[in-house]
């Protein structure tokens, strides 16, 4: 392997805006990884950085047109936030770092599709889903959301070792499993038309994703088959460009 001089991760700028002393996230935090790559994506748009509002559980020294979506109560708050983001400013970028940690209930990821769909219905110009396990895809989508016309919404699945109950070293692998089992497909919606950004021909069974986390340990064969059927139906519809 010595004959190769350049590897793809080295194409990123090595300058860090997301400093390690700036946050108090747990070890293996998916949100921290997503925020770090968002910073890298926004580096070229230095002028927009001082118009950012962040409100996430760990503090970031960011001089402060992003609209925040905090943790908790997502089902109730998120549609309202979508409306606010739409009214507030005609061109803003809404990033939702989703670690599925609604207090008191664990919402399976299959029903996640509603929020991008709600954003599309509210007339957002650019809507996408992303995952920190695919950093270049995430960076690309944040940059496109920043430069596209009108408001943009990006839904970022952020694995959480504490809430999902797995070993912290599995964080990136879990996100990859979620995408490869098509529970959380990566797609983007430009002007209302859906397009898959990563399409896996040989997709994994849902069971691999569910059994990797202890929060789903009560799911037995019957529930897993039901989830698999629901995911397959949703993915087949998404492939045809429907919601």
């Amino acid at each position, binding site marked *: *392997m*010595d004959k*190769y001089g350049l*590897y793809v*991760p*080295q194409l*990123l700028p*090595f300058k*860090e805006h*997301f*400093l*390690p*002393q700036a*946050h108090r*996230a*747990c*070890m*293996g*935090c*998916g949100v*921290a*990884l997503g925020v*770090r790559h968002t910073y890298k994506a926004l580096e070229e748009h230095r002028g927009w950085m001082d118009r950012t509002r962040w409100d996430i559980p760990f503090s970031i020294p960011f001089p402060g047109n992003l609209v925040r979506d905090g943790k908790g109560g997502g089902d109730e708050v998120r549609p309202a936030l979508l409306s606010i983001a739409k009214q507030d400013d005609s061109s803003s970028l809404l990033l939702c770092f989703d670690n599925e940690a609604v207090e008191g209930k664990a919402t399976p990821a299959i029903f996640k599709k509603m929020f991008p769909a709600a954003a599309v219905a509210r007339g957002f110009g650019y809507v996408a889903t992303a995952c920190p396990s695919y*950093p270049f895809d995430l960076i690309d989508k944040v940059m496109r959301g920043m430069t596209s016309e009108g408001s943009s919404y990006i839904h970022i699945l952020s694995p959480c*070792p504490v809430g999902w109950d797995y*070993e*912290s*070293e*599995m*964080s*990136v*692998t879990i996100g990859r499993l979620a995408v490869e089992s098509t529970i959380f497909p990566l797609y983007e919606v430009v002007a209302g038309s859906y397009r898959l950004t990563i399409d896996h021909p040989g997709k994994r069974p849902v069971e691999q994703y569910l059994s990797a986390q202890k929060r789903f340990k009560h799911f037995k064969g019957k529930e897993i088959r039901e989830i698999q059927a629901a995911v397959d139906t949703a993915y087949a519809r998404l492939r045809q460009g429907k919601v």
Partner: protein
Amino acid sequence: MVKKAPATAPSETQTWKEIKVGCILLEEGKAKPFERADKPALVPQWDKQMCVRCGLCYLFCPDAAIRRGADGYFEADVDYCKGCGICHKECWFGAISMTEEG
């Protein structure tokens, strides 16, 4: 002190009297068993024979605690590394091992 449940009793037949009380200290001044400070933190260690300087560890570090040195090899900032082990897991060449700090 909590009365120990008899070993022969299966867990299904336990009543509220046998189940241990949770989330409280039962003995006064006995927080010693919960101490974690003596457990050493794990930090990544690079094997420079196997490392090809691809930068995957740098790409996936959530804490931005991995820096590129002057020679192109990567190194961890031990002050901020939390020892999550993502770099160890994601390294294609198995060049990173998690060792005890210090």
